[in-house]
Each structure stands twice: as structure tokens, then as C-alpha cells.
């Protein structure tokens, strides 16, 4: 008897696709497929109910792509605000660098729990024209009611808690001892953050940003209240539905999907690749 494995017995490497062998494995794969298809149900319904001619006539109408541009611009501004404004907060939450950390976290969760419609109502009292902030904006010849600025504010409020929670998790996944080690090797905290913390948290941050992007692109509740004009894609869909019915709204749902999806998908692929590269 030989203890040496013959070549035919050697297993392929760890990246091989797991092979389905037993009946229970078949059942669990089938179960997963059912759930996946159920989750995709709305997307499938969208694709099966669209006709090319309706799509063409809707998208070739004058001004059809105006809302797309507005959504993309306000979404980009929202992401920039979140990244530069909320990343430090997420880092401090993850490192427990704030006094009474539970209070801070409860605040983030409270904003996460507010329904978008309620956020919109409350924003009227916060930044509406007759509030101190509104008056301040008025002095600067700005307004946070039915303007592009209002749209951006609504999107920031709808997506920020998702970004903060995601970014906090991304930073919490970085071992603080690595930052410590970088400092012992001569890096000031800021430099250690840039050379160690940020690169290690980037895949998680990218995922958090892409979730925030999806929230911003789909922001509707708060937008409906304080930024009815200029309309982004969600309001365009709502208006089409109100004015001409379901079938003319569907093409814009596809536009929303096509615009919102690439960024999360790219972030997902990229963070998976970063993980593989790290494993060598």
C-alpha cells in the first residue's frame, strides 16, 4: 500500500467550483435559486413587460434624458459629500474615538430608521425657506425648496446613514494593531491612515459608497416633499405613471436600473479582485 497520492487523486486548488454531489446539495442549490429568482422577480417583470417600440418612443421624446442627467449629477455630488463628510465620522465610530460611542451610534441608527417621506417632511422644518437655515441660504441667493440644492440635500439625508454604517464596518475590519505598527515604523497617524487604514478599508468603503449611490439614485420620499423640481429619474417615473400610465413609466425604470447598477457592480467586482490580490 502506498501513502503517496497518485496524480489522479490530487485535488484541484482551492478556487475550484464546488461540485454538487449529494441529493441534499442539489436541494440547497435549488432552494438558493428559488430565493434568487424571487428577489429578481421585479427585474424579470420589468424586462418581460417592456416592448422595444415603447422603449424607443419614450426615450426619443424631447427632454427624456434631462432627469437622468439631473439624477447622475446630484448622485455624484451626494457621493462626494458623503465621502468627505461622513468618512471621518465612520472612522471615529469604528475606532471608538468618540465619547459616549453608543449615543453617536444611536443617532446614526435613528436617521437610518426614519422613513424617507418623514425625512422630507422634517427637512422642510430644517432647511425650508422660513427656517433660520433657509433664511441664511436666502442671503446667499440659494433656496432649499424645489431646487437642485434641495434635491442634493434630500439625497444626502436618504443615503448618508447607509454609507456611515457601511464605512464604519469597513474601518472596523482593519486591525488597529496594523495602524500601531505603521506608527512605530515612523508614520504619523495621518500618514498611517493613508498608507494602511485607507487601502485596507477601500473595498468596504467602495461597497458602502455604491449602496449609498443606489439609495441616492432611487431617492424618492424626501425628494417628493422638498425637491419636486427639478425632477430626477424617480420623480420622472412617478410623473409618467400619474400622467400617462404604467406602460410609459416602465422604460424609465429600466433607465434607472441601467444608470444605478454599474457602480455597485464595479465596486463589487473590484473589491473581490482586491481580496484575491491580497491572498496572493
Amino acid at each position, binding site marked *: 500500500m502506498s501513502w503517496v497520492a497518485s496524480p489522479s487523486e490530487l485535488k484541484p486548488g482551492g478556487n475550484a467550483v464546488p461540485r454538487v454531489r449529494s441529493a441534499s446539495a442539489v436541494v440547497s442549490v435549488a432552494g438558493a435559486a428559488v430565493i434568487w429568482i424571487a428577489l429578481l422577480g421585479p427585474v424579470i417583470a420589468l424586462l418581460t413587460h417592456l416592448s422595444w417600440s415603447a422603449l424607443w418612443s419614450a426615450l426619443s421624446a424631447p427632454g427624456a434624458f434631462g432627469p437622468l442627467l439631473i439624477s447622475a449629477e446630484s448622485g455624484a455630488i451626494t457621493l462626494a459629500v458623503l465621502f468627505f463628510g461622513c468618512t471621518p465620522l465612520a472612522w471615529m465610530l469604528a475606532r471608538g474615538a468618540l465619547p459616549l460611542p453608543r449615543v453617536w451610534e444611536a443617532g446614526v441608527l435613528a436617521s437610518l430608521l426614519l422613513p424617507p417621506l418623514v425625512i422630507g417632511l422634517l427637512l422642510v422644518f430644517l432647511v425650508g425657506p422660513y427656517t433660520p437655515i433657509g433664511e441664511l441660504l436666502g442671503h446667499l441667493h440659494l433656496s432649499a425648496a424645489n431646487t437642485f440644492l434641495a434635491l442634493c440635500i434630500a439625497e444626502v439625508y436618504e443615503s448618508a446613514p447607509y454609507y456611515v454604517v457601511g464605512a464604519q464596518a469597513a474601518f472596523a475590519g482593519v486591525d488597529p494593531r496594523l495602524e500601531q505598527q505603521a506608527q512605530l515604523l515612523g508614520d504619523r497617524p495621518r500618514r498611517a491612515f493613508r498608507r494602511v487604514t485607507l487601502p485596507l478599508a477601500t473595498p468596504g468603503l467602495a461597497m458602502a459608497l455604491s449602496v449609498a449611490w443606489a439609495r441616492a439614485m432611487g431617492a424618492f420620499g424626501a425628494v417628493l416633499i422638498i425637491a419636486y423640481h427639478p425632477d430626477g429619474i424617480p420623480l420622472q417615473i412617478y410623473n409618467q405613471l400619474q400622467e400617462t400610465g404604467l406602460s410609459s413609466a416602465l422604460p424609465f425604470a429600466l433607465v434607472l436600473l441601467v444608470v444605478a447598477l454599474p457602480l455597485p457592480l464595479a465596486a463589487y467586482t473590484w473589491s473581490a479582485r482586491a481580496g484575491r*490580490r491580497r491572498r496572493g
Partner: protein
Amino acid sequence: MLDADVEVDRRDFAVRAAVQVARGERVALFGPSGSGKTTLLEVVAGLVAPRRGRVVLGGRVLTCTAPPVRAVPPWQRRVGLLRQDPGLFPHLPVRRNLSYARKASPEDAELAEVAATLGIAGLLEAMPARLSGGQQHRVALGRLLLAPCDALLLDEPYTGLDASLRRSLTELVVALVEARNVPAVLVAHELADAQAFADRLAVLDRGELLQVGAPDEVVLRPASRRVAELVGYLGFVPRGADRVAGVHPERTLAGAHPDRGLVLTGTVVASRPAGAGWEADLRVAGTIITCRLPSRPAPDGGELVVTVLDPPVLAAGGPAGPAGAVTRQATEAGERSA
């Protein structure tokens, strides 16, 4: 020269210790888990602030709690700390881990030399996740050596590695400390690791420095009963009203050799194979001692005569010695008792 004299508050007790380490000298801080060894290293590295004290490295005051108060941040201390977790940056290949504290240059002769010394020259483009535990430690050590480093602190770095790897890494560090001529401090809870590394052994227990001395001196002449217990004395035989003789299992001989130490006659309570010989528990004068024997002892209940080689005679009570002081009582305490 590293000179640290500090007091640090911990949850359950305060760590008080004064240690001086000359350039090129290797000191091992030895003690049970949770005795405050790591805390001391972290104070020297600037990661923990002491309640009171002073840390001076090569003439630079790194920490001083008395006016003028000084607390140099970790990134300006030039102190290398190696922990059990090598702490390699997982997103950087080995080469960039090694050159982390250096200006990037593709032709780095010193890097190549250190990598060759450490046996990792073939791994420079590999990612840390691909390395074995021993290789990761070599890279972490190389990273410290390539950084500006005036003192080397090793916090049980090789726990979890197998014995031969531990030995080769320890020999490597010893050679490197000699070549670099920097003070080095190793924290260990295994006596063998501490002895293999150190010129001087410092025994720490519950934040108190109990004894500092040459590794063999500390083991052969423990300053107190507590030190004796920590360095492996398993039995204490009464000698007079308030003294006991410490019995180390590895310092016993079968038979009576009155010229070499204390001859004891006892009853075998239990015996078991140990290494290449046997280990037996004897009941002697109402206490149990453990001794190593070359061959199988008499069956349980039988009588056995052993000689305890030159045993230290200690105060019968618990740990002795003034708090935090470097005690040199060992020689006086360990009077010959044969």
C-alpha cells in the same frame, strides 16, 4: 542604553519596574501571563502612558512624567516592536513591507542584504498571506531592522511556532542584536525561550520585578520562594523553623551524594515516564517533591533516596523582596545546605 523606570496602573494591580539595558545587551522579562510584561514594552514603545516614570533611550528622554513633562509619540521613538502576530501589512508584497519605513528605491542594497540574511530573498514579490508563520516572522523582523531602530522589543514573538523554528529565529535575533549593537528586550512566559535569548533575566510577577540576574543565577539562586516557583521549583522541603529548601525536578540525583547537596529519603507517591527518563513524586517531611531520575524508580509506596543538588534555601513565606527593586539577595539567600 535603554533606561526605563516606570509605574503603570492596570485594572487589577500597578506595574512597577526599573530596567536598564545596555547597547547590544539582551534582557528577557520573564513571568506568568498577565504579570505586566507586555505593558512594560508598550510603555517603552509609547503605546501606553505610565502614571509615573521615565524612559530614556540612547540619551533621548522619551517619557518623563515629572516636569519637564515629555511624551515622545510612537512615530518619533525609533523603537521596534515585534509581537506574536507579525503584523505584516496584508495589502503590500513582502518587498514593500520590508521597505515600509524607507524611501522607495528599486536598488536597495541593504534590503537585499537583510532579505538574504533572513532567508526571504526569494519571497520579495509574494503577498504576506502566502507566507508560512515562520516566514512572516522573518519578514516582520526584517522590516524592523530596515527601519530606523534604536531598541528592539520582542513581545513573545514566537509563541505558536514549533520548537526548532523558535530556536533558529532566536539565534537569528541574537546575532542581529549583536551586529546592530542595540538594546533588546524579550518578553517570555516560557523559561526556555527567555534563557535561550537573554544575557540577563528579569522575573516579573503581578507587576513587581522580583529578581534580575544572569539566567543561570536566577534559576540556581532564586531570591524568593515565588521566584523559585516561577522558574520551575516544584517542591519545598522545610529546613529549620522558617526556611525551606527548593527542589527543582531537573536538579536531583538518585542515591545519596552528601558532598553534592541535600540528601532526602522519601516514599514514592507516583511516577511516570518523562523525556528520556522518569519523574517521581516523593513524600518527604510531610510535603511532596518532584524529581527526575534516569531509570524507573521503586514502585509506589517504596522508599527512595535522592540528592537535591545544591538547593537554594529560602524564606518559607510567600514572595519576598522590596517592591520594584532589583534585588541581589539571591547569593545571600541561597546558602549551601548540604
